[in-house]
């Protein structure tokens, strides 16, 4: 016992080790090759190609383009809201004890996830053809009961509505699976603890399960929203004036196709970047209470990345 020394032998910190690092020649050669190819590509784009850079600058803030950007944001946001709402409903149905609700949800997901989005958008645009002539009226009311309103299908399903339905209903199927994964990731003990306090099923879902499921739901939902922003370009098949449609329209006059594609790509990148930032803040909020060191701000994280600490 008496032999063991409990106090540190020297109060000062020893000097850090100074050693000659290993030379990693392979790594240097690989980096050199990658650099060479990149440089030759950049040289081609900047100096040798017939890329008309001034055209890009000229069209980047063209009023037709910026108006289309606004339409893209509007279409994506509205479709996403519908998708998320549908997703929550479908996920809860899928997890309900009722075999009927479960099956209906399963069939919905099967159909909307298993057919191309392009087909779905075109289908909604042409749905009016399914309603009888001469007026193509849609009966909306109680199933098998009296109809309350009879809108005209051609007037109700505009290009925009068809695009929203196509994107939103399709998104609902994907969101259903994401929300379901989130809900089942919440331990059963949470539900039991809430139930033992006398909370109702709805209260438990709203106050306990969904807030915790958010942590699992948010990252893939951010992905979905980024996909959604880009998928709005599919609405060009039904002649909705979103970015791609407008770019093609302009290019059909001046033939500067690559330049206009770069213009809209810059806009898509700008929109997805904004979505990334939004996702970051939402995730930080949902992550509250899960980590002791959760309060690092975005700035601190960037600094940490810069100094090699992660």
């Amino acid at each position: 016992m008496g032999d063991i020394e409990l106090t540190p032998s020297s109060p000062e910190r020893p000097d850090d080790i100074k050693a000659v690092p290993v030379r990693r020649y392979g790594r240097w050669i690989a980096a050199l090759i990658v650099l060479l190819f990149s440089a030759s590509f950049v040289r081609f784009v900047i100096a040798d190609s017939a890329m008309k850079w001034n055209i890009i600058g000229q069209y980047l803030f063209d009023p037709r383009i910026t108006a289309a950007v606004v339409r893209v944001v509007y279409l994506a946001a509205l479709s996403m809201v519908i998708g998320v709402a549908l997703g929550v409903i479908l996920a809860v149905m899928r997890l309900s004890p009722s075999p009927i609700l479960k099956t209906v949800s399963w069939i919905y997901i099967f159909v909307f996830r298993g057919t191309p989005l392009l087909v779905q958008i075109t289908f909604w645009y042409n749905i009016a053809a399914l309603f009888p002539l001469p007026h193509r009226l849609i009966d909306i009311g109680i199933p098998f009961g009296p109809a309350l309103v009879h809108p005209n299908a051609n007037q109700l399903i505009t290009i925009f509505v068809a695009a929203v339905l196509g994107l939103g209903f399709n998104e609902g199927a994907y969101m259903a699976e994401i929300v379901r994964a989130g809900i089942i990731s919440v331990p059963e003990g949470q539900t039991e603890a809430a139930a033992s306090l006398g909370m109702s099923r709805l209260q438990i879902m709203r106050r306990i399960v969904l807030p915790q499921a958010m942590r699992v739901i948010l990252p893939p939902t951010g992905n979905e929203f980024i996909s959604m922003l880009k998928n709005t370009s599919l609405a060009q098949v039904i002649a909705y004036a979103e970015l791609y449609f407008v770019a093609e329209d302009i290019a059909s006059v001046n033939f500067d196709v690559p330049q206009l594609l770069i213009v809209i790509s810059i806009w898509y990148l700008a929109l997805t970047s904004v979505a990334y930032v939004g996702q970051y803040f939402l995730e930080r909020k949902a992550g509250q209470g899960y980590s002791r060191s959760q309060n690092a701000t975005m700035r601190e994280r960037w600094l940490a990345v810069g100094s090699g600490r992660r």
Partner: protein
Amino acid sequence: MSDVMVRAEGVHKRYGANEVLRGITLSVNRGQVMCLLGPSGSGKSTFLRCINHLEQINAGRLSVDGELVGYREGNGKLYELHERDVARKRREIGMVFQSFNLFPHMTALENVTLAQTQVLKRSREQADRRARELLDRVGLTDKCDQHPVALSGGQQQRVAIARALAMDPKLMLFDEPTSALDPELVGDVLDVMRDLAKSGMTMIVVTHEIGFAREVADTVVFMDGGVVVESGPPAEVLGAPKHERTRSFLAKVL
């Protein structure tokens, strides 16, 4: 008002072919503390969960404060209770879990206020006051604004006890409340439970803490294989067990 808080008569519970409870008959009087002991798999936790209807019993009768658990009796028939009524009865029975099950997305204070405002419809101020009072009582005055992740196991379990007490229950169920705790944190939780027992709360405690059972329990029940092997005052069951099975269990635990 009868003196009996919980009465079980021939309670059976099975999962498929696996019979977990094979006829449990016991009763707990108002203001009494009962400790359930037994090896794991003996059915003691399952029985506890049947009392607030987290598990449904398959046969027998189980009642709390004179009312059947999960059913209503009328003209010689049993009617299953609506979820709403099950929830209303659950709020009068506090439950504390082995794994605490605090809500991780809320602070300690919010954990204790949530059901007060949601279920009992207390005002935010009322709920807040009651929550602070209870957190103070379990010795966590300064932890109100911490999330569970920042608390030790013992502190989390004490928040969980406060959360259950906030509903002003007439019965408290403890499902191995100290089994997931570091040995040095067990004492704080047992102290809180001891105080609660002294204040006259009716308690059923599934535990492996023989010392606590000896000191606090009015009745000790030893279960094995889904049946009650032996029950009585702690001095009898723990001091002079009649059954060989009880003796061998106690020999291993003590």
